[in-house]
């Protein structure tokens, strides 16, 4: 197990290098720093000096890979690739367009992101499992049929409508909670209720349908027939036998997104004005702040790879038959 994990983590290194090369290619090779400078300073009527100044301020005036003017190790380190891309590996994300330190910004924005994402995630899984159990308990009945139809209909509504509609109904019409904003500490709850509820509702259609399929697959297995043959009631079969076994694919399926909760949710955070990483990312995309987008791409990939490793571990934990070699 330990050896497997070490190997798994070592395998992550080439993947991260690959991610790094992709982002570097996108941000510096497809477009030269000159193009970026023109974009930031306005395309027309920009002097070459202004571009040079912009590049020098941000350290984009170095060569891409090889700096022949430098001496010693500087040939490789005094380049854009080393200062902008390779430094990401040690957690040095550099500065944003407005001059702020990206690492500090990320650290301070993680809290609000998690405050929305964690309750949404936990409640979402719980509610979907409960709904799926209800549908499976009444399977092949009218309730089941219309429940599935409702799930498909809910899947077909864009997430934007849930947020816009929810904000309009709850905050504007009924005036139950503030429309958007955030407060530190315990006061945050009234800003968090609505985003969490909307997050749960908008995800419920797809996950209920998926979990229902898991339950139905489990119900067709031999041990369930044995349990019924023993004379157990349907409720006992469902809750004591099927639920436990169907939780295996459900849990192992959601583990991969747990690390990504740190990234926050793009839409929810930007609509509700929550100062988390999701709204940070959206603002950066809108302001075309390439350093922030690059940093978020890197962090996102690291978290995804962590999620993959956690998934492997969770398989072993919930199903003792599986051994990682």
């Amino acid at each position, binding site marked *: 197990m330990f050896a497997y994990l070490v190997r798994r983590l070592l395998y992550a290194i080439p993947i991260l290098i690959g991610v790094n090369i992709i982002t570097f290619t*996108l941000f510096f090779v*497809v477009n030269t720093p000159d193009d970026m400078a023109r974009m930031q300073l306005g395309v027309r009527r920009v002097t070459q000096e202004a571009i040079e100044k912009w590049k020098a301020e941000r350290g984009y005036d170095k060569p891409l890979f090889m700096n022949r003017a430098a001496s010693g190790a500087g040939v490789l380190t005094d380049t854009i690739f080393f200062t902008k891309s390779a430094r990401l590996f040690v957690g040095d994300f550099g500065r944003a367009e407005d001059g702020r330190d990206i690492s500090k910004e990320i650290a301070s924005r993680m809290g609000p992101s998690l405050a929305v994402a964690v309750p949404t995630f936990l409640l979402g899984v719980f509610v979907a499992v409960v709904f799926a159990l209800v549908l499976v308990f009444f399977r092949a009945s009218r309730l089941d049929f219309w429940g599935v139809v409702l799930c498909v209909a809910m899947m*077909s*509504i*864009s997430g934007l409508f849930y947020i816009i509609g929810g904000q309009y109904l709850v905050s504007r019409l009924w005036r139950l909670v503030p429309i958007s904003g955030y407060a530190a500490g315990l006061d945050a709850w009234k800003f968090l209720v609505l985003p969490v509820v909307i997050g749960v509702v908008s995800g419920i259609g797809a996950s209920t349908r998926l979990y229902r399929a898991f339950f139905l697959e489990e119900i067709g297995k031999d041990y369930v027939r044995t349990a019924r043959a023993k004379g157990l009631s349907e409720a006992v079969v469902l809750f004591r036998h099927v639920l436990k076994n169907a939780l295996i694919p459900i849990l192992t399926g959601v583990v991969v997104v747990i690390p990504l909760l740190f*990234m926050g949710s793009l839409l929810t955070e930007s609509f509700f004005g929550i100062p988390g990483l999701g709204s940070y990312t*959206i603002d950066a995309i809108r302001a075309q702040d390439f350093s922030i987008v*690059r940093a978020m791409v890197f962090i996102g*990939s690291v978290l995804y790879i962590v999620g993959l490793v956690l998934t492997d571990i969770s398989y072993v934990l919930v199903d003792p038959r599986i051994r990682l070699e």
Partner: protein
Amino acid sequence: MTMRFVPVPLLTDILVWLLVASAVAFGVSSKKNPLARAAWRRIGRNRPGVVAATILVLFVAVGLLDSLHYRKRLDATAPGQSAVYAVEALSLLDAIAAPLKERNEKTYSAPLATRSYAKETLETRDAAGVVRGVRDFPRLEFGGAHLGEDEAGRGRDIVKKILVAEVFAAALFALIAGGTACALARRGAKDVRGVDLSPARAWKAIWCGETEFSWNAVLGVVGAALVLLAPIVFLCVDYHVFGTDKVGQDVLYQILKSVRTALVIGLVTTLAMLPLAIVLGIFAGYFRGWIDDVIQYVYTTLSSIPGVLLIAAAVLMMEVVIDTHPQWFVTAAERADVRLLALCGILGLTSWTSLCRLLRGETLKLRELEYIQAAQAFGVGHARILLRHILPNLTHIVVIALVMDFSSLVLAEAVLSYIGIGVDPTMISFGTMINNARMELARDPIVWWSLASAFVSMLALVLSANLFADAVRDALDPRRAG
């Protein structure tokens, strides 16, 4: 004599037409294969699936009409001169819906309204002939203009138009339904019990759902569409049926235009995705070894970057390229079109990994089967094995994945446009409609019609795509087809 117009084949137009044509060709050619025919029959018997497919056909028809672009010749051209064509590229849909496109009001107006949403200072002349400024809602320039002074007659006029429309719809429906029954009888179709159908019997079989193909579902959708759409068609000539937006554009027109954008995103993206997914997936699964390692490495790396961020990074870069090379594009429509095409390409490049993984897994299983080993023992080359023996057995996975991706792509477009990395802001799409409409709920009285119309039409499109995808999956997936 020069032509009255010159066709402008936009890139996305060509691709959409090609895709729809090849989908139809694929469907027709697969009829020769008995297994595929059985699968088609299963879809045909699945009533929700047929309902969804019929609705999709209506959407596709609108999208295809909107994908034939041309430029009009300007009337000012003197006889001897070479023809001068308008800068703006119009589509066939624009020509059909010309009243909707051209009759713009000043600003918001409610559905079927005769007066504007916002008050203005109007100059009226009182009995003494003195001009006075009065704050009131001005009459719309076009909405209900035919009523003249008789504004109170609006209700009566609308009811009358709806009644006429319904009579027309009923007549048309009777014609279509009768035509279907006669066509079935003439083709020598049989009902489920194998009895030959006369026109009258055919009608009864359709009504009771006893035909092989669910004709009753098709006719039901056609009937419902006629009942709902005929009044809209009859009313849209004189009113703004779904109101107007901030700059006074008819919302119904925007919806019609959004359909094409959604179709292009949903269809053309698959074109970028398919070759990569199929070729790499099959190669990885069939050749294994270092080829497999490399391909797995590539798709693990790509899929480990969060999708939205990868799309955002690629779109930002594309914007820089487009902004720094304005000389590439003659018209704004072309620039928006290239941007849309690039967006499809980016979406395709970021979403091929999951299909590739599926195909690799399936190919791994297939290559161990006896018939492949037999082919190898006979000395059949790799290329032939891949094309003749492996690829045909993967089609169901590809088709299922394509149909299922369609709805998620349409939904993704809306979100991307909100973030600002979607289609060109000048291009009408569901995303830009929602984006423009979302602040309107804060107005008092609220402007609900743009958002509501976008919601309903998008739900209709995505829901029918989802239901159709379910029907296709049930029919094609060997594990589900019982």
